[in-house]
């Protein structure tokens, strides 16, 4: 009976020590440094979010001019094709008018 009691007391003691250690894990440490950090974080969140990442590096390296050149070249080719069609049509229209 006493041995049983001893085992029971031992188990209760060990288990309660676990509970005690769990409490320590959950509790945040009241540090001066921590409170400063949380205050700064709250300030940052209440103000504007961080600047959206734009392509400034791309632009500063001058690569944007390559993009623009490509787009303008493609577009001028399309315009050139339209001008070619326009001139060809004008010739055909003039020919049919001469026939009349």
């Amino acid at each position: 009976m006493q041995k049983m009691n001893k085992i029971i007391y031992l188990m209760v003691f060990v288990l309660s020590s676990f509970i005690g250690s769990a409490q320590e894990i959950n509790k945040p440490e009241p540090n001066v440094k921590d409170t400063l950090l949380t205050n700064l974080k709250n300030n940052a969140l209440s103000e504007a979010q961080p600047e959206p990442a734009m392509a400034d590096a791309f632009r500063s390296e001058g690569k944007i001019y390559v993009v623009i050149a490509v787009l303008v070249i493609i577009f001028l080719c399309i315009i050139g094709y339209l001008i070619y069609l326009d001139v060809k049509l004008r010739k055909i229209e003039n020919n049919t008018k001469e026939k009349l």
Partner: protein
Amino acid sequence: MIKWWKILAALIIVYTLIWGMLGPVPKLNILYETIRNVYYHVPIWFAMLFQMGFSVVCAVNYLYKSDLRSDLISEQAAQVGLFFSLPGLLTGCMWAKFTWGTWWTFQDPKLNGVAIAILIYLAYFILRSSITDELKRARISAVYNIFAFVMMFVFIMILPRLTDSLHPGNGNNPAFGKYDLDNHMRMVFYPAIIGWILLSLWILDIKKRISILKYNAENE
């Protein structure tokens, strides 16, 4: 004939290509630099709406004056408008992939509206090809054109503004004008609309001249 407004169209669009890429834009999350797509994607759709409007005006003119030339221009304008919907859709899909995360969605009313409008105008061309008599074809397709334009306007411009939508300017979303407080974007955007409409008129001019020549050649 090389007219002044054709050269103006080319110059304006080259200006929007250059300054649209270099000019300042508002810095927004999710969009980042893709906000510049508004200089190309939106004016292309404006050009399509303009061409469809031109087409319906010519259709009404045909019903009023029975001039087959109006019917011819009406058909060509509808073709140009439908052609412009292709780059509009493709640029929209590209933009959606990088901002909404998907190429297409059936949840957005504007995308559904655009799909329906394209199907309506495809039906217009099928209707035209199903009638052989010239005058009958012109009359019936002119009437259908009027309905098609009204339906397109409702599906693209009106219905998306009444319900939830991801599109800017529709469904409780602010349009880009709200972010462009210093008018930097408007300096490129408004000329771009004019430039692309003029370009669509140039393409219409060429198509009109080709179809008139074809018509004259067939009916000699």
